[in-house]
């Protein structure tokens, strides 16, 4: 697969300037990661593992202290390419309320396009297209504050989508949503990925990560696992040692295996679990 994002030995730290003397809080300690065009990568890690910091390195909000980040061959530290990079890598944050700028849905979706100086007719076309993609076209003239959390988050996604980015980085986009909202967002994400958009989903929900094509696990500023979901989640002990969980069905099958049932140890989806258990019980009965 063609490389789209290359992260090479990146280190990053925040300075606590209010401490006396100023202390350094190292967040990333040598992270290397390649992400191909069109991939769907989930990044897992508990609080403080550096996953949000990593996300902000991808569109030049943060610049690496050591090492380098290349987006489509462009260095993020190169000022000249700043807006080219931000156009290619869109970002969606946790709280939908804090990323909507305008008081009308369609105006908000148009915001990024207005910033990069797209012609009005083309803005109209792309805004309509983005709103249709996330299924919010009928709400284009509504006020954002009257929409539900899931709807607002879809507007935020549409706002990024209108830039026609090649990659969207989502920093816990479902953390503040109810189950219905989460479901809507996951559906949108999968649909975008199917249309060829590279997705980097930062999450702490294991069932969401299980739906990705690849899972990266981070702990104290390092990548400690990077593989397909089945392989990552079968390492239950390792995940638990860094304060993470595995999907409920994986935990269940592991418990059953420990009791002597003959089940594979890499079950991550409910459907698969159901089928295996059904077959097992039928054979047994």
């Amino acid at each position, binding site marked *: 697969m063609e490389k789209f994002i290359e992260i090479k030995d990146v280190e990053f730290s925040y300075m606590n300037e209010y401490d006396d003397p100023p202390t350094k809080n190292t967040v990333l300690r040598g992270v290397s990661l390649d992400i191909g065009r069109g991939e769907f990568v989930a990044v897992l890690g508990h609080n403080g593992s550096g996953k949000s910091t990593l996300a902000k390195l991808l569109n030049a909000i943060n610049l690496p202290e050591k090492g380098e980040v290349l987006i489509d061959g462009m260095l993020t530290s190169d000022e000249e390419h700043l807006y080219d990079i*931000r156009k290619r890598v869109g970002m969606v944050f946790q709280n939908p309320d*804090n*990323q909507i700028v305008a008081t009308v849905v369609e*105006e908000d979706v148009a915001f990024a396009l207005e*910033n990069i100086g797209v012609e009005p007719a083309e803005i109209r076309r792309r805004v309509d297209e983005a709103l249709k993609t996330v299924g919010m076209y009928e709400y284009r003239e509504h006020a954002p504050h009257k929409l539900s959390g899931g709807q607002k988050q879809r507007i935020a996604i549409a706002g990024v989508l209108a*830039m026609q980015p090649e990659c969207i980085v989502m920093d816990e986009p479902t953390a503040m949503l109810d189950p219905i909202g989460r479901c809507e967002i996951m559906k949108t994400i999968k649909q975008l990925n199917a249309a060829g958009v590279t997705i980097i989903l930062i999450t702490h929900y294991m069932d969401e990560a299980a739906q990705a094509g690849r899972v990266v696990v981070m702990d104290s500023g390092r990548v400690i696992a990077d593989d397909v979901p089945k392989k990552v989640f079968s390492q239950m002990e390792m995940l638990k040692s860094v304060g993470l969980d595995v999907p409920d069905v994986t935990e269940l099958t592991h418990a059953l295996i420990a009791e002597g049932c003959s089940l594979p140890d890499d079950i991550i989806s409910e459907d698969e679990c159901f089928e295996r258990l059904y077959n097992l019980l039928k054979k047994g009965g």
Partner: protein
Amino acid sequence: MIKDITIGQFFPGKSIIHRLDPRIKLLLTVIYIVMLFTASGFTGLLAASLYMLAAFIISGIPIKMMLKSIKPILPIIIFTGILNLFFISSGDPLVEWHFIKITDDGVRTMIFMAARIILLICGTSLLTYTTSPITLTDAIERILSPLKVIKFPAHEIAMMMTIALRFIPTLIEETDKIMSAQKARGADMESGNLIHRAKALIPILIPLFVSAFRRAEELALAMECRCYHGGEGRTRLKQLKTAPRDYVAVVITLIFLAAVIVLNMFSPI
């Protein structure tokens, strides 16, 4: 319930007044104010009020709304009325009692001033009734943009107004939540004297401010991610275009202004 508040006093509609270019509407409002202040006699004022009445009827705004907009300035009208009544000593005296002297000039000026203030409020209210705050902000930005040459931050001011409008409902909702949270912790906001109640607001204001700053930081980040870099090289989704109806409105308004000036000559007061 608290979520449904309307910002400003925009009254959605599809009348021709609603559809006028907001920049033209601002211009018309200015001409109208000039008209009111050039009118020196009752006939001039009558012409201006006919203009206002016609505009109100065309806009389809209920008359109730107009009265509602006058209500808050009633004390000012009464105050200026009383001042005019007692401090104008020219003209024929109507009542004389000790040091109080009311003249016919005083009464006339009182009525004239009151009518002028009421018409002024009606005109500006009509502007805000028929133009949504966001369109108004947009119009202000475009009207002020020539001033960018002298480094006047037209875009920045408009952007701040837009964000303020966007966050008013969000922050109101938040205030509601914080109030509930503090009440649940035993905060008492309804009893005691004024100072006591003002002090009781502190535990609401502090969390509100902290949260507002946090929101501001996140919003700035989200805006940066969407390539925001000030007003330079920015295009807009909605272009403002003047239509023939805008010119017609300007011409009619100017005719009224001319009429007021002519009427002034014939009836000095």
